[in-house]
């Protein structure tokens, strides 16, 4: 009798553990995953999740969005794209310089912001964490991503103290075509690696 009770108890505990673990894993809540480990849209390496902020259809997406997109706007107002690699697929890091370039975006306002591995602005006092539509102006634009300002660069995004970092592209007031066909509508900024400190030293 005792063994039978223990068997049921063990089944209950094991079943609950399997249920909890599988729910968290399938919703992307466990084991700990970065903000970049999800997304249903990919445009040239820039990833986004258009379910952010909305009442998504399935409970897995809902839980994932609650974790990664808290207080983010629904896609009719703003969409967010992120990338952590350059155009060649190499991780973005403080020791390298990059040319970020783009043109007009299909949105009322846009910005590109640099975040460190903790999803925070890099810990420096350079006052150069981003570039936005108001500073870039109309037409083609370029910004240098580096740990120090260089003469000749029209715009600078500081990677000082950023370590390994990523870039978030915000598109506010997106055009309907962007939401309907992101890959055909958005020409996202290019991220071209120029050189790295270790390469220069060798």
């Amino acid at each position, binding site marked *: 009798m005792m063994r*039978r009770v223990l*068997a*049921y108890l*063990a*089944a*209950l505990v*094991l*079943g*609950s553990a*399997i*249920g*909890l673990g*599988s*729910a*968290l894993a399938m*919703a992307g*809540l466990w084991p700990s995953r970065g*903000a970049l480990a999800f997304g249903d849209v990919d445009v040239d390496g820039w990833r986004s999740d258009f379910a952010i*902020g*909305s*009442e998504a259809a399935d*409970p*897995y997406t*809902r*839980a994932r*969005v*609650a*974790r990664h*997109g*808290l*207080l*983010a*706007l*629904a896609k*009719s*107002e703003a969409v967010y794209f992120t990338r952590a690699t350059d155009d060649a697929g190499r991780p973005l890091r403080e020791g390298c310089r990059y040319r970020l370039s783009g043109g007009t975006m299909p949105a*009322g*306002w846009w*910005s590109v*912001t640099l*975040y460190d591995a*903790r*999803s*925070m*602005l*890099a*810990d*420096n*006092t350079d*006052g150069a*964490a*981003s570039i*936005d539509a*108001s*500073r870039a102006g109309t037409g083609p634009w370029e910004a240098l991503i580096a740990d120090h300002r260089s003469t000749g660069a029209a715009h600078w995004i500081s990677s000082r103290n950023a370590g390994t970092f990523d870039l*978030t592209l*915000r598109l*506010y*007031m997106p055009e309907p075509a962007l939401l309907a066909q992101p890959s055909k509508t958005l020409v996202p900024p290019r991220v071209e690696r120029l050189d790295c400190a270790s390469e220069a030293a060798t």
Partner: protein
Amino acid sequence: MRRWIGPLAVLLLSAAGVHFAALELAPGVIMDRAMAKLAERGVGLHRFTAPQRITPQSQSVVRSSPDLYYALCRYDLSVPDKALALRMAAWRDYQSLSFFDARTDNFATLRGTGEAVEVRLLPPGSAPEEGAIVSPTARGVILIRRLAPDAESFAAAAKAGEGDRCAIEAARGG
């Protein structure tokens, strides 16, 4: 073999039950924790915060934009016959008033580029009214964003923000 059927059934049922219960509860738990953190950081109930410009030194929320002005107001409409009166004062550039319920859904956003926006937020289950939004849950967060990419425009946005309002008031007709 038959003696294992009972425990096996318990295992499968408990796994399925806990699996779906965890998914159902997760958004509410995450929002609860976020609301508690906001309260700790001084985000008041039924009033907008007076925000600081987002810098590496002042940031407290992941992935905040240094180009935006953010003002937050927490609300709790579980008290009977109460509603929330909201005003987003005029701002020369992009601004929005967005509403997030206790399950993290962005259930409404009002854009107000160049103009003031006034709206009332009613408790769950209220009859629809003109000029009012019904909140899906009793508790939640309201967020004003203003485009302010430099120190000068941020100071101007903060000045405009003095006209913002998030205040509890008696529900009309109730």
